[in-house]
């Protein structure tokens, strides 16, 4: 039984919201909020449905022909549903957060419209079943994030937007070329096809390698792999919910997810190993991990530090792919989710500090733990997760990656992991220290840069709740990783699918 309506509806919900939001007038604030939240709920329900169906062994497919030989296909498979779940869950959180964050500011209609479009694109990316469909939503994502990045309209924001586009559009072109080359070689190649590209190996080895390089190179820009990461720290000028979304779900993850698709579902892991590109990927990822951490240490502002941390952390996913083995795969997939949860928490926190207290620099954070305890606890949880300490979710992925590395006999990867953890500790622990162990304005020493009393609690409750929620989920994802339908469990399910066909 094929429920083609399911993936289509999941996508259409978000797109419909976009249309409605753009059609509503700017000051229809309540209605917009209601629609936004309702749609987010509906999408979570739909994704839950998909999860259940996938768990029961059904894969729903929706497709139609675009041109001869190229179809538009949406399919809910385990990997896609995993990403869709992440995006729909975090969409809800981020939407709530954004509503609170943008209270009273201008251009909210535009913001929420493109915000929804952005999420619709990620759903599309998640459910795309061939490279053509994937590309459509991937580029849509690029476009829909641009207005979000430049939302503030300042010179800095506009410059950041320009840099962002330079990177991502060039990458899009490279990706397009790779895709077209692949289609010219093989025709329409579904992600779900069992054959992979193994048949072409003998005659087109060079071409396949080139295609792989183009595809992964194009995707690596969004994944912010060094040296293609330059846009990410700059894009930090965007409002906090955008940064959160950019880092946790949408853009960066879309790239990583794309690489997952290319390696596992398009080329197939065996072929990738055969081509010898996997090790190169692992090396590049390792370099990115270390480089990102080193740069993060040098940052003096909170958001850029988090940005470089993202640069480093997302490559864990790529590293997991590079380990070529079930453990590495599980680690990669789980980290896709875990990093999303933890990073979104951290960015929510950063946004809260900036909104409530005007804190942007790290040395302004002294003693903020007293003024904003919940935010600071959430930040601490996120930071510990990034370091990879239990019981936060980050530990789980690090464990799987490390074990995967050992089983793949890539011992140096463990060294990279340990080094990265240490570096992470080096740039996160001082912040935690400042939050809790230094006295600052909350103790009558100096004053906050720009304090506002936004709510009854330490800050506006719309800002607080999503953050607490994601922090708890990242904690729970680590503590109860063994539960069914936990991120780890689902990742293991996907990996089983990849390795035990």
């Amino acid at each position, binding site marked *: 039984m094929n429920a083609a309506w399911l993936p289509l509806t999941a996508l259409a919900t978000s797109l419909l919201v976009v249309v409605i939001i*753009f059609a509503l007038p700017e000051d229809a604030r309540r209605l917009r909020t209601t629609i936004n939240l309702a749609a987010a709920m509906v999408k979570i329900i739909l994704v839950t449905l998909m999860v259940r169906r996938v768990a029961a062994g059904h894969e729903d497919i929706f497709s*139609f*022909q*675009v*041109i*001869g030989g*190229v179809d*538009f296909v949406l399919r809910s498979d385990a990997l896609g549903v995993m990403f869709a779940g992440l995006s729909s869950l975090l969409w809800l959180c981020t939407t709530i957060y954004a509503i609170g964050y943008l209270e009273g500011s*201008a*251009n909210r*209609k*535009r913001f929420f419209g493109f915000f929804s479009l952005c999420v619709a694109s990620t759903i599309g990316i998640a459910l795309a079943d061939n490279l*053509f469909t994937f*590309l*459509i*939503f991937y*580029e*849509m994502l*690029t*476009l829909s994030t*641009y*207005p979000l990045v*430049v939302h*503030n*309209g*300042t*010179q800095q*924001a*506009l410059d950041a*937007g*320009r840099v962002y*586009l330079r990177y991502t*559009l*060039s990458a*899009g*072109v490279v990706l*397009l*070329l790779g895709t*077209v*080359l692949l*289609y*010219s070689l093989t025709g329409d190649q579904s992600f779900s096809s069992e054959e992979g590209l193994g048949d072409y190996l003998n005659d087109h080895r060079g071409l396949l390698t080139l295609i792989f390089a183009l595809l992964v190179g194009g995707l690596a820009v969004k994944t912010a792999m060094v040296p293609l990461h330059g846009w990410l720290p700059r894009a930090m000028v965007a409002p906090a919910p955008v940064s959160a979304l950019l880092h946790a779900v949408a853009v960066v993850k879309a790239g990583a997810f794309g690489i997952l698709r290319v390696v596992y579902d398009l080329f197939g892991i065996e072929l990738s190993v055969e081509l010898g590109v996997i090790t190169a990927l692992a090396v590049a990822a390792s370099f990115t991990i270390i480089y990102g951490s080193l740069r993060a240490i040098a940052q003096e502002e909170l958001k850029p530090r988090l940005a470089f941390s993202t640069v480093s952390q997302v490559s864990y996913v790529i590293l997991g792919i590079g380990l070529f083995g079930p453990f590495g795969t599980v680690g990669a997939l789980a980290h896709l989710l875990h990093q999303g949860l933890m990073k979104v928490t951290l960015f929510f926190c950063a946004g809260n500090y900036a909104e409530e207290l005007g804190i942007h620099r790290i040395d302004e954070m002294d003693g903020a733990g007293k003024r904003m305890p919940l935010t600071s606890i959430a930040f601490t949880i996120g930071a510990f997760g990034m370091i990879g300490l239990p019981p936060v979710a980050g530990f789980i992925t690090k464990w799987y990656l490390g074990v995967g590395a050992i089983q793949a006999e890539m011992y140096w990867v463990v060294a990279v992991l340990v080094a990265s953890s240490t570096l992470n500790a080096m740039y996160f622990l001082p912040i935690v220290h400042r939050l809790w162990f230094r006295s600052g304005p909350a103790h009558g020493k100096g004053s906050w840069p720009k304090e506002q009393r936004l709510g009854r609690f330490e800050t506006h409750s719309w800002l607080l709740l999503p953050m607490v929620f994601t922090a708890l989920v990242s904690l729970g994802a680590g503590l109860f990783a063994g539960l069914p339908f936990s991120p780890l469990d689902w990742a293991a399910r996907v990996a089983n699918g990849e390795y035990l066909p």
Partner: protein
Amino acid sequence: MIWRFGLFDSTFEPLLSTHWALLVALGLPLMLGMLAALFPPKRAWPVVLASVPVLASGLMLLSAYDQAGLLRWHWDIAGVQLSLRLNGLSVLLLLMTQVIGVAAAIYTPGYLRLSETGPLARWLWPLMGVVLSALSLIWLATDLLTLYAGLELMGLAAVGMLMLSGKVAALVAGMRYLLLALMGSLTYLLGVALILGHWGRLDLQGLAEVVEPGPVAWFAAALIGAGLALKAALFPLHAWLTPVHENAWTPVSALHAALVIKASLFILLQLWSILLPDTFYAPRVIAWLGMLAIVWGGLLAWRTDSLKTLVASSTVGQLGYLMVAFPLLLGPDIAPLPRALAWEGFWLQLMGHAFAKAAMFMAAGNLILATGESTLKGLAGTSRRLPLSLLVFGIASITLMGLPPSSGFTAKWMLLQAMVISQQWWAVAALLTGTLLTAAYIFRMFRYCFDETAPRHRYQPLAPGMDLIALTLALIAFALGLLAHFPLELMHGGSP
């Protein structure tokens, strides 16, 4: 190649209703234009009403083609052979013309009301009617005489329309365009003279059968090519285009950039495919020029300070996309698959660009009208005040950039695939560079729009529907991307 243009015998005779539909499609725009000159409409709704039969005729022709396949008409008037044909391509182009024409017409009353247009405004209507009728004729005609007549009619009316604003710059540019267009048609006519002199006939179907490669065909092709290239604003003969658009009224620019220059290109391709079925270098030359056009147009649009120049220069670059496809369409030794891909990609690109460019001109016109500024810097802060116009511009520009899921993307996809298969890497590079350049100038414009720090100024409110019309066109261009299968299938059909 020739069968793709429907130059073969039809199986069925057209029905009586089809005759009428044809008459309406060709004549009604002209009639309505005349009528509107007498009673200029002040509101949009009469125009909407009047456009219903026009669109209906197009749809009837579409259904007629759907049922009967290729249709032909043939007349012999005092020894002069005139013939028309209706195949999938011409139906598509006809519908495109009607939709864009109708959109421009509906847009016009609002535009005229809001801008100070002067006493010449009423002449816009008949000229528009002439242009639309002439265009319809060109898509359908299959003899060189009708084509020539249509081309001239369209060209003169277009020149007239473009100069209606009466500004000095418009007059200078219009005069230049007039002289060049006339010169181009004379060159074309010289080519036709050679054909007529050598083969003694002007009907394309007959010519397709008798033409054999030889000096006459080559000279005729060269002359026709040069003349039509001038009229189609192909690089490097494009330079008259931007000043013309710079000063023209918005609906006029929309019509001109979307349709008028495409007609010349259509004729060029159609005649070359008859005259030069197997020539290697001539299409290559066009393609090389096309590569330059992509870069040049992109650079021009990138560095300009005027919004309309940006839009107009982008036309130059976009025509380059079509030009680089020439070797795939005309050259020898192209396998059937890439040729089919290129063929479909070419027309999809042409149609997508037509809709998008019309929408873009309207959106740009709206922005200029509302802000009262025609420079990019004057757009600062429009993202807040004129979101819809900007959105339309954005959707249209997605098509121009060729980003998914627009028709520009699908077309580029097909062209790229064809080029990859036939290993024309330079063309691939040009196409991809074009994407980046387009993005560069589009987002340069958006950069100004998103600037929130600029001082606010008062905006003139737009007439209702002006944005919606543009939005409709932009959405059509956009939707053709994923729904490309339906129009393209129309072009598949009717192969002998």
